[in-house]
């Protein structure tokens, strides 16, 4: 993927993802991750992706300190730094 496109995609993903995470309840996030895990498994069969989503289901499902810290990280994250991480993930580099 060209660099400028990866950059735009990363910015969009970060904005949408952050808004979504900060505006849903923990229980709702847990259910959505559960659904996303099923979809991801059906579409890609990627075990690692499913494992990560499974952990997110548990973290938000428990509605405890771990979920609180995850939310704090998303709310206080530096935008440029976060976009760089998302971009790296998109480009797998």
């Amino acid at each position: 993927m060209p660099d400028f496109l990866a950059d735009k995609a990363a910015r969009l993903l970060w904005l949408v993802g952050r808004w979504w995470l900060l505006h849903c309840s923990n229980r709702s996030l847990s259910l959505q991750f559960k659904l996303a895990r099923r979809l991801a498994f059906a579409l890609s069969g990627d075990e690692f992706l499913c494992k990560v989503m499974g952990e997110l289901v548990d973290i938000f499902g428990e509605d405890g300190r771990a979920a609180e810290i995850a939310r704090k990280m998303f709310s206080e994250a530096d935008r440029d730094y976060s976009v760089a991480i998302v971009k790296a993930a998109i480009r797998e580099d």
Partner: protein
Amino acid sequence: MEKLDRVKMGIIGCGRISDLNILGYLDHPKCDLVAVCDISEDLAKARMKQWGAKKYYTDYNRLMDDPEINAVEILLPHRLHLPAVEAAAKAKKHISLQKPMCVDLWEGRRMIEAAKQAGVWLRVTENFFFYPPYRLQKQWLDAGEIGEPLSIDIRLCGAAGGWWVPLKTWLWRLDFEECGGTPTVYDDGYHKLSIAKYFMGDIEKVKVWIDFTFGAVDTPALVTWKYKNGALGLWEVTTAPNLLNNGKYYGADEWVEVTGAKGVLTATRCTSRVMEIPPLIMYKDGQHVAIDDIRDDWADSFHDAGWEFIDSLLDGRQPMLTGEDGLYLMRFWKAIWKSHCENREVFLDELKEEEAKPDA
């Protein structure tokens, strides 16, 4: 203290890092792995099979009651270190405790007293201390190869990549109350502070600057200190999100450089191998000496730490890295945090009174 004929180990805590802590215990000819323990029964059973242990427990108090076991390796979250060490001492088991030793300084003092009263050895495991290139670096320093050491420069670079660590494990480390400190300068930092002390001696004072990423990760940071002998120390912490680290373990690597009056000694890696250059390089008298033929996998340091514990118990001597050493490093961390919070130079001696037990 009496010598043991064989060391019969119990492992308490079977999470990610136990993959490495176990190495020395599995291949030492005079060590038997008797039991493993984890709060997750599935994990405890899996580890028992994987490592060939005889039995498993889900409650460490049950493991402590096992008369067959004479030593334990404690690999638990930091908040649980004090009760686990006290239980082990009460059960007369020799103790290897994973770093960082404690959350509060008085806890460390209580652990030392508990082990002393019970007549068991206590050591605080810190694998960097046993990393073969660092051991050689220290030998050369002590032999005066680069003259009087003037400064130490430690660099930690976190990067993308590394092995899988469960998200929940990361998250409790980001919880200051649960972890007992910050994830980088305190938890991972214990390794670097240990090397700083091991190489150059006692620290007089520290001054730091710490920033936070994601509101919880203490990076980037600069930690500076002055040794009692006048030498200087600097530790630079950086995280590079687009730097791919293909290491087998954590996505991080270190660089440790000591400048002496007549030369420079540099260890170019530890946790992984970002630079494909010799692991240890010395410059003096206009010449470079590069050491290539040395064990330099991070796992070697865990292996050797395990062997040292077993050999010490067989010889009836105090294992390296005593409880006092562990407590000293905790005081170093507390001074760093105090310097960050109060934005001033902090002397390590200011922290001594915190070792006293608080009133109930």
